[in-house]
């Protein structure tokens, strides 16, 4: 049997400072930086999860680039997202409220088949906990979301939640162009703009 690689677009959502970029940095580079200020200057990051000998899932992870701060996230961000990680900070009830808003937004704007994981980050700060596991879990169950607590700082639960998402994604060969994300990864259906003009321009042009 030949190895299969699937690629999916994953978007991160959540209030500013809940640790979106840190979570990705931990997952992608296994690093943590206490004094990270804002989002990394990258279009998106990628990381691969191996499910078994034959199957790997490559995530194309989109960070908000701070555009969530003033109600300014572009629809393009949700476009063709296969999965979303919505973060809250377990030490702040307000961030769970904000997470609920993002989830409603996803349910309204994103593809109905999107896999959503609700993630309580900063589990290393359990002493200052404001959101109980029960409360968040109950909400996730009601909405049919995956749920976990993570700590980008210690790494606890981080790779586990991404692996769990990978397992939940439909690993049947996605139809080539039906929905960006996966199809897009394997080989874009669209035109390649880097392609140079054909070698004999006069030949194909209006050669009346």
């Amino acid at each position: 049997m030949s190895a299969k690689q699937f690629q999916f677009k994953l978007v991160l959502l959540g209030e500013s400072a809940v640790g979106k970029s840190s979570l990705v940095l931990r997952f992608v580079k296994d690093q943590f930086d206490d004094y990270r200020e804002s989002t990394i200057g990258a279009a998106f990051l990628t990381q691969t999860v191996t499910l078994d000998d034959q199957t790997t899932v490559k995530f194309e992870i989109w960070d908000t680039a701070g555009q969530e701060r003033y109600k300014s996230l572009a629809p393009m961000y949700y476009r063709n997202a296969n999965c979303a990680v919505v973060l809250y900070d377990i030490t702040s009830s307000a961030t769970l409220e904000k997470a609920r808003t993002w989830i409603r937004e996803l349910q309204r704007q994103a593809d109905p088949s999107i896999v959503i994981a609700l993630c309580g980050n900063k589990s290393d700060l359990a002493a200052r906990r404001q959101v109980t596991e029960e409360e968040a879990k109950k909400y996730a169950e009601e909405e049919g979301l995956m749920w976990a607590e993570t700590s980008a700082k210690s790494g606890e639960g981080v790779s586990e939640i991404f692996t769990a998402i990978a397992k939940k994604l439909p690993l049947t060969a996605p139809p080539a162009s039906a929905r960006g994300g996966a199809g897009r990864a394997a080989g874009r259906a669209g035109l390649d703009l880097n392609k140079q003009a054909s070698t004999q321009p006069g030949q194909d042009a209006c050669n009346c």
Partner: protein
Amino acid sequence: MDEEYDVIVLGTGLTECILSGLLSVEGKKVLHMDRNDYYGGDSASLNLTQLYRKFRPDQEVPTELGRDRDYAVDLVPKFIIASGELTKILVHTDVTRYLEFKQIAGSFVYRDGRISKVPSTEMEAVRSPLMGLFEKRRAKKFFEFLQGWKDEDPATHQGINLDKDNMRTVYEKFGLEPGTQDFVGHAMALYLDDDYITKPARPTYDRIILYTSSMARYGKSPYIYPLYGLGELPQSFARLSAIYGGTYMLDKQIEEIVTDSDGKFVGVTSAGETVKAKQVIGDPSYFGAGNTAEGGKVRVVEDGKVVRAICILKHPIPNTEDSDSLQIIIPQNQVNRRNDIYIAMVSSTHNVCAKDVYVAIVSTIVETNNPHLEIEPGLNLLGVIHEKFVTVTPLYAPTSPGASDNIFITRSYDATSHFETVVEDVQDVWKRVMGSDLVLKKREVEVQE
């Protein structure tokens, strides 16, 4: 909002978003604001709710058009010409990774009461009814002359000086009929009127080469188009800007452009708060466009009007081989006008509307007091029009280059069928703001494995 910025950008149209993205990449601290709660300004693509809110605020969105979110209706009818400057910027800035493009299926021209395809292959050219047999031979010689032109090789010039001789001289040299001249000047060089004929031939030559090389790039037509509508373009450049530290604020009413006693820019006031910056860039609507100046400085002037009719159809445009997307040019001479009428159509193939719906925009430069009548020759080609939204939009241009007061204003989106003039505006504003020419640098590859 107590920080100070290098540049505040007002309006998230394509021009402003490209500038914002390039300035952020350059290391400028940018604050980008828009009064609307969506990206794109005048170059946005709207869903049905937004479309009706804009044009028919008192009317419910009809349910028979399908799901709201399937729609991305462009406000401005433009395509990307494949070998043009916008393509270069898209590639150089790498925003292509956020976008997917498809071809526009065909380019057509209206002549003697019928629609004909602009040939995209030699085979189509041979079969084309646009020219008689002898005229085809003359045209072939003309195109061979253009394709063979080398500035440094006088033998290829055949006695023509592109910088001195006007286009009429060139047409006459090859004995091209008026109908062929119309075809070359309007369907290929994409001139909107006939003023080019009496001007030096060089720009026309450049435009024809742009057209033919664009046609050669992917075939079918010289145009490409982003899936989900043109509104994806400003969004992708906005993301580029944000990734390089640009701050975005939508849904912000701008109450005042604050200047000091010398008239120099200080900051902008929104919700009673003033944010300071060294420079401001914005579209004309943020600088008094459409308002009568009440003692304030006149910063923009009207430079003509464009009438645009967004038409929702439930069928492809008749006599166009059921093309899923197209451009039809109605040259001015065909309908006794001074300016061409354009039809641009896209459909669900480009993810801009529900299945079996087609969105066509008929547009032209306004010449009379009754612009609605002026677009009729275009509307008449569409068959039954399910729904129609007509706008007459003034085109604005800045009155001053901006260097003296640090206020840099962009131009409205004109009547041309592609984005080349938008890129010219970007280059112009960049030069005014930065004091040097825009040089595109390739970004480092930042997809990290």
